[in-house]
């Protein structure tokens, strides 16, 4: 099947408007007869469910948590981008579009990104109307902050809890529709397969996580907004339950999976401390506005620090290597995430890591205390302030800006970051890859849509800070509700989709057999044993830097782990009860397939772009020596994989990327 992105004709700035004017609509009276299933209730799924219900469709929404409000969008800290230009610093729809395409290292679809930039301003209006308490200035107007990789202030925020407030906004819109009966909410339910009837997605099989009951749900269209697959690495900043199962199930039933190797490793996370660790915690990118990143210059100091003979504060300025400032003088500590992460790895691989595991660098606020302190002394007219006074004044400013993050750090690490530099290390955070969708956000299964982090569409090979929230809400509030109508307009006479068909029988049987296998297998090893093993292979061989040899090994090793899993996995308890181990088993089984496809995709993409760094594809000399080298001649395409049984047999389909409105350039942050 040839991939058709269905991008409308015409100039980029008119595409979306013209398209909306021409698509088929469903009459309000007919919407009452149309059902839509939405899987996942984060920013994308939650906003889509609410909007579709407002329009009059009958929505069935599914979440594995006990409330839509607990989806992992809730944990996003920093903010949401929008081209409002409230600061008058020259922002525009075009500039947001340009920054996003460049930030993504020219591997996203232009028309989608332009649309995203276009609707970004509507999102802020909508959220404010819902009562989202964004930060404001003393004049009562909305405040903005700045994020990595851009030159304007366009990020709206609600303290360090922007994701929480936006999700609670979408949740409140959902609650209004649940109360009206337009959304039927299925909490503690997990989608375990999609049901395809006559070539169209017509329902799902779900498991009630309290009773273990397997349920059939039918609809005229299925929307998957189930988030990313970062937990394929076992350790990530994702929630414990975040999983790829819904996305992977639709992939196995015909939806192509795009660019799985595009993963974002976030530079500022709390380093791991031991083998028992269950997850990693992000420290917001906003900290890089004021924190300076360094490791010791001399190996003796590294050893002394690791052995506790020296403290980081003992080292003088010229004994420190502020390596980001050294390598990237123009952007310094505010280079994009992929660049900052690789630079930290480079120093730690060279042996300069500052904790016992050798995987940590310092994020130091000492110069911020000093700078703010002197500024405050001036403002308060304090003559010849002492060093202590300067520190005290500066600390108060830093506390007002980042207090909750400093508190979080201290609770986890048990060190006071006001007194000693923070230790950070990169961690898996977000997946740019995902289910392939066309301009309508429809997958290669007719009637099956994919939105938010679960799809591949807008971030290319690297996502800029504060763009994930924007994309999730754009898809759910402003894109899908239009595009899905065009498809559903053919279904006004279809009537209810019956669930007693042979297609539902077959899908349910498959799901039940797999569950029964797990609870009856009585193997020798826990689910986590396999998940950790997979995670280690992924991190070592498909992590921040990759090469052909390692990726080939990774494919073989993951296959071997998968085979052992199906022999030796042990799941206690029964199928007909709440059984968290059983839930994990199903998710890890899917990760064990996805991981192999991931490695295969990374192997095929023999170029470096964004978060995907191939050691074979680096600049060998000149001012960019050692930096990632993109190859536009051979790799300016989206890799869309078709499922063929074993992940190693997946078939590659290429969507060539055309850049008509932006010139392809090397990203330079020097």
């Amino acid at each position, binding site marked *: 099947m040839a991939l058709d992105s269905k991008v409308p004709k015409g100039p980029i700035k008119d595409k979306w408007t013209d398209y909306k004017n021409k698509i088929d609509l469903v009459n309000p009276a007919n919407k009452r007869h149309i059902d839509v299933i939405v899987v996942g209730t984060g920013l994308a799924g939650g*906003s889509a469910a*609410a*909007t579709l219900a*407002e329009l009059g469709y009958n929505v069935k929404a599914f979440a594995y948590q*006990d*409330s839509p*409000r*607990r989806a*992992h969008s*809730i*944990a996003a800290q920093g903010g949401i981008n929008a081209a*409002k230009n*409230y600061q008058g610093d020259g922002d525009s729809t075009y500039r947001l579009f340009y920054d996003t395409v460049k930030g993504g290292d020219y591997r996203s679809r232009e028309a989608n990104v332009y649309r995203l930039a276009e609707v970004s301003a509507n999102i*802020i209006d*909508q*959220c*404010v*109307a*819902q*009562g989202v*308490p*964004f*930060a*404001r200035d*003393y004049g*009562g*107007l909305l405040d903005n902050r700045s994020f990595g990789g851009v030159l304007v202030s366009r990020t709206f925020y609600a*303290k360090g*809890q922007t994701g929480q*407030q936006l999700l609670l906004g979408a949740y*409140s*819109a959902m*609650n*209004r529709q*649940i*109360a009206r009966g337009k959304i039927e*909410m299925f*909490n503690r339910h997990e989608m375990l397969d999609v049901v395809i009837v006559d070539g169209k997605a017509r329902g799902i099989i779900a498991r009630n996580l*309290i009773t273990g009951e397997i349920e059939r749900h039918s609809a005229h269209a299925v929307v998957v907004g189930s988030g990313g697959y970062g937990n394929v690495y076992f350790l990530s*900043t994702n*929630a*414990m339950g975040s999983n790829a199962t819904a996305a992977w199930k639709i992939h196995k039933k015909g939806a192509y999976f795009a660019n799985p190797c595009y993963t974002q490793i976030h530079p500022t996370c709390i380093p791991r*401390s*031991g083998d*028992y*660790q*269950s997850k990693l915690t*992000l420290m917001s990118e906003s900290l890089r506005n004021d924190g300076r990143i360094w490791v010791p210059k001399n190996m003796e100091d590294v050893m002394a620090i690791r052995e506790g003979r020296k403290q980081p504060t003992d080292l003088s300025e010229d004994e420190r290597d502020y390596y980001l400032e050294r390598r990237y003088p123009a952007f310094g500590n505010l280079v994009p995430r992929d660049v900052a992460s690789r630079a930290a790895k480079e120093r730690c691989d060279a042996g300069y890591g500052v904790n016992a595991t050798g995987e940590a660098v310092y994020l130091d606020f000492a110069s911020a205390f000093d700078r703010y302190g002197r500024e405050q002394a001036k403002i308060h007219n304090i003559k010849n302030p002492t060093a202590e006074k300067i520190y005290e004044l500066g600390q108060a400013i830093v506390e007002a800006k980042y207090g909750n993050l400093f508190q979080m750090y201290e*609770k*986890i690490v*048990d060190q006071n970051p006001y007194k000693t530099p923070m230790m950070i290390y990169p961690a898996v955070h977000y997946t740019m890859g995902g289910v392939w969708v066309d301009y309508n956000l429809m997958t290669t299964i007719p009637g099956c849509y994919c939105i938010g982090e679960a799809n591949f569409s807008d971030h290319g090979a690297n996502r800029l800070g504060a763009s994930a929230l924007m994309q999730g809400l754009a898809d759910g509030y*402003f894109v899908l*509700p239009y595009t899905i109508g065009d498809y559903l307009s053919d279904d006004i006479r279809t009537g209810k989709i019956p669930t007693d068909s042979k297609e539902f029988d077959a899908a349910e049987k498959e799901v039940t057999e797999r569950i029964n296998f797990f609870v009856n297998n009585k193997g020798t090893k*826990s689910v986590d044993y396999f998940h950790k093993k997979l995670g280690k292979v992924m991190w070592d061989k498909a992590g921040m830097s990759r090469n052909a040899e390692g990726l080939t090994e990774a494919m073989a090793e993951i296959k071997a782990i998968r085979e052992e899993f199906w022999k030796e996995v*042990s799941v*206690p*308890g029964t199928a007909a*009860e*709440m059984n*968290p181990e059983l839930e994990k088993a199903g998710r890890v089984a899917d990760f064990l397939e996805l991981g192999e496809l991931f490695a295969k995709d990374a192997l095929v993409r023999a170029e470096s772009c964004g978060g995907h760094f191939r050691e074979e594809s680096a600049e060998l000399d000149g001012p960019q020596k050692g930096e990632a080298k993109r190859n536009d001649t051979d790799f300016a395409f989206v890799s869309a994989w078709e499922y063929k049984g074993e992940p190693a047999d997946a078939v590659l389909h290429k969507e060539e990327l055309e850049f008509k409105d932006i010139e392809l350039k090397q990203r330079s942050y020097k």
Partner: protein
Amino acid sequence: MNLTLKIWRQKDSQAKGQMVDYKVTEISEHMSFLEMMDVLNEQLVNSGEEPVAFDHDCREGICGMCSMYINGEAHGPDRGITTCQLHMRMFNDGDTITIEPFRAAAFPVIKDLVVDRMSFERIQQAGGYISVNTSGNTQDANSIPISKHAADEAMDAATCIGCGACVASCKNSSAMLFVGAKVSQYALLPQGQVEAADRVKNMVAQMDLEGFGNCTNTGACEVECPKGISLENIARMNREYLSTTLKG
């Protein structure tokens, strides 16, 4: 460190539960409390026993899923955090730790330490929203200035994570702090004014219907709240409610 855990085990909502003793050894003080529970569960799975079911998800204190009652305190013996942010350095070698589910008539136990908080959902559905459709042509976000003070106070109320620690800590199992926080967020913002009267009436009515107790101003909820939601929110809700009912 080595610890004795006394944990509430209950097969399902119908079964009779009981406290069961477990031993865990070699627990690092750097572990989080839930990582200690992972160690226990791995131990149980490897010996063919059923692991302890407990709610958890984000493990960074924001999703509101985790909900244990540890040594008689919701989210355990530290302030301003959820159970997932509690670290084992708060305990000593040889300690016995008692772990129970959140207990309240309106939070029935589903299994072990997992409780059903659907009552919170129904309260939110009764009025915890502003009635505005998604259209793309609501007014510009800056067309109504909102004082920084009001916006910050609304934000403080809105940081509630809906975990239910307030209910579990209250001797009356009252949900006033939870409901007060949501009512306050909208009461403080101009967008929420049009339906303010209906909102507070409907949310309070639903709260009563769910079987939550009354507030007797003890303040335990505020102390145990992981997000530091202030008692002022209860006072504000009472004012809103009173002015609504007096007006009729």
